[in-house]
């Protein structure tokens, strides 16, 4: 991205001044290198989002932003329903509530390293991963509706995990206001056999080792000690969310026309939050959130079983579960006035600071854990929300490394077998059913996650707690 049209407004903050139909300015976070490496489309998409009705304060892009659909991936935008604010299916994305959860093991990697191969095989055989892989659960219509209303709470009731897990999941493991009637039968059909599955693409289950601690007190509070391993799971609402996205994108295109909302590109299709179409989408999207939370809860239970089988101990305690594709109703103070806003985060993580009432009580004094996924060959990070993050981008931070190379380019540049061997030479065991998939997900096809996290820290979006290195990756 050419920086000439941007005004540097902070150490790692760049502003796009209002022009044309923009109702608010645009703000992109990142150091100069990240900004220069960003696709020009990010600026265009940030500006387009700034034109939507009812947008408040600014249209934001996180340091890992890249070209998305309508909204940039890494985009954050809040809308006021009382000011004609809109909700956009594209602003949430097809993988509703895709997110990361991290589990503490309390086990030093050095103590179990000799069982890595067995653990990898067992996890690979236990957790369904990859295209077309189904889970052991088959939901009938009534069970489907219960799951869509109940989220992770439903999963725990079915015996997947423990009640104490729920406090460590955003919104207590269940999005209120989910109405299964707003979800099409096609969406439910797509989900029927997919509970407890990872999916494909950039989804994974990894064992990662705490490699460096940046904040001893918070890391201790989060149960993170150097050399210990954690389990991280990255996946979302599977076929259900994908179909909800497909269904409502179409509906919102009609709604935008009906309500006279001009769209710079079709993918920005949206409906007023208070319209029947907007309300229906929000109800369906909440079902998508619950589906994703139930899915990650079931996978957690499967991972615990695998640990138990191989290591004779499976007490994986949930550190936190965060979603990075959502739209949530939140209270925010804007220019000293408290307002109820609907905050879209498309490839962005909520990052609430110390003392925030929505952070699990046991972690509240440290701030919310912000889980940043890297690639199968590079670091992941645990960050914590900051007090000032609410004043910057509605309490949001980055979500991962973010791609800097298309899948096509990656496939042409690397062979999956070589990627796997190189990772193996680094000491990372990778299990996957597709070599081409590994080539497309090659670590070098992503931005430098260290730089992304550093920028998020410098911009005050979140602060660094610990760095994790992957040692075992079950690739979706």
């Amino acid at each position, binding site marked *: 991205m050419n920086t000439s049209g941007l005004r540097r407004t902070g150490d790692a903050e760049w502003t796009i001044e209002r022009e044309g139909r923009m109702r608010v300015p645009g703000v992109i976070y990142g150091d100069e290198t990240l900004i220069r490496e960003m*696709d020009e489309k990010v600026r265009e998409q940030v500006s387009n989002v700034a034109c939507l009705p009812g947008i408040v304060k600014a249209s934001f892009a996180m340091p890992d932003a890249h070209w998305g659909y309508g909204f940039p991936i890494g985009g954050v935008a809040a809308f006021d329903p009382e000011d004609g604010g809109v909700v956009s299916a594209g602003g949430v994305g097809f993988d509703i509530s895709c997110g990361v959860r991290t589990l503490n093991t309390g086990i030093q990697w050095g103590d179990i390293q000799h069982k890595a191969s067995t653990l990898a095989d067992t996890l690979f055989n236990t957790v369904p991963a*990859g*295209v*077309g892989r189904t889970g052991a659960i088959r939901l009938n219509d009534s069970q489907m509706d219960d799951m869509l209303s109940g989220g992770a709470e439903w999963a725990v009731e079915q015996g997947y995990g423990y009640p104490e897990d729920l406090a460590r999941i955003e919104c207590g493991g269940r999005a209120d206001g989910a109405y299964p009637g707003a979800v099409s039968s096609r969406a439910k059909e797509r989900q*029927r056999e997919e509970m407890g599955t990872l999916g494909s693409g950039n989804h994974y289950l990894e064992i990662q080792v705490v490699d460096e601690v940046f904040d001893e007190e918070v890391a201790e509070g989060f149960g993170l000690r150097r050399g210990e391993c954690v389990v991280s799971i990255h996946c979302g609402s599977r076929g259900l969310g994908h179909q909800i996205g497909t269904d409502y994108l*179409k509906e919102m295109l009609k709604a935008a026309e009906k309500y006279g909302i001009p769209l710079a590109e079709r993918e920005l299709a949206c409906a007023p939050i208070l319209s029947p179409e907007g309300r229906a989408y929000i109800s369906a999207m909440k079902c998508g959130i619950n589906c994703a939370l139930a899915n990650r809860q079931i996978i957690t239970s499967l991972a615990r079983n695998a640990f138990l089988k191989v290591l004779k101990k499976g007490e994986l305690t949930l550190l936190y579960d965060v979603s990075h594709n959502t739209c949530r109703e939140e209270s925010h103070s804007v220019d000293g006035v408290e307002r109820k806003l609907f905050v879209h985060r498309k490839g962005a993580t909520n990052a609430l600071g110390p003392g925030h009432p929505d952070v699990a009580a046991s972690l509240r004094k440290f701030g919310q854990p912000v889980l940043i996924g890297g690639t199968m060959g590079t670091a992941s990070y645990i960050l914590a929300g900051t007090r000032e993050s609410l004043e910057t981008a509605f309490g949001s931070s980055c979500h991962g490394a973010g791609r800097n190379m298309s899948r*096509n380019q990656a496939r042409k540049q690397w062979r999956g077998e070589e990627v796997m061997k190189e990772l193996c030479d680094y000491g990372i065991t990778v299990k996957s059913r597709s*070599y*081409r998939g590994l080539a497309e997900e090659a670590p070098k096809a992503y931005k430098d996650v260290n730089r992304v996290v550093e920028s998020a820290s410098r911009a005050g979006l979140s602060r660094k707690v610990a760095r994790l290195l992957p040692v075992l990756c079950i690739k979706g």
Partner: protein
Amino acid sequence: MIKARLAELSADIYGGKLELREEREVWSHFEHGADIGIRGEGPSAAEAFAEAAMALTAVVTEPGSVTASNKVQINCSASSMELLLVEWLSALVYEMAVRKMVFGRYEVCLSGLSLSASMWGEALSSGKHQPVVEVKGVTYTALGVGEDDNGIWTAQCVVDV
């Protein structure tokens, strides 16, 4: 052998832009930062739609690995040709997901803004097809359907994976 020669020819003519060229009907992939653009071309809109579907198959697996044995029928309609392309490909994504199938042959008939398609494929096998990635949804990004001055139709969009 023929396929290899056609690929060479395609590289000569299109500078490697096209991944496969078979007679007049072609499919290809184009760049998108995070995901994949799919493009079908042909002497008619219907054939371009069929080739776009083949390009979607190629996102998931090598089309040549698919035995076109079982037939599935799709009917859909929309208010414009571009939206019809999204409708058609979204229906294909749905059928692939719920039937756990991949398809290697498509025949598309268009009547105005209504589409009727037959597609042939088989049950997805991780061993045989080595599936790379599932398609989550069909987007409106880089969406286009049109005919050039030489009468060649193009149908394209980006799919989210």
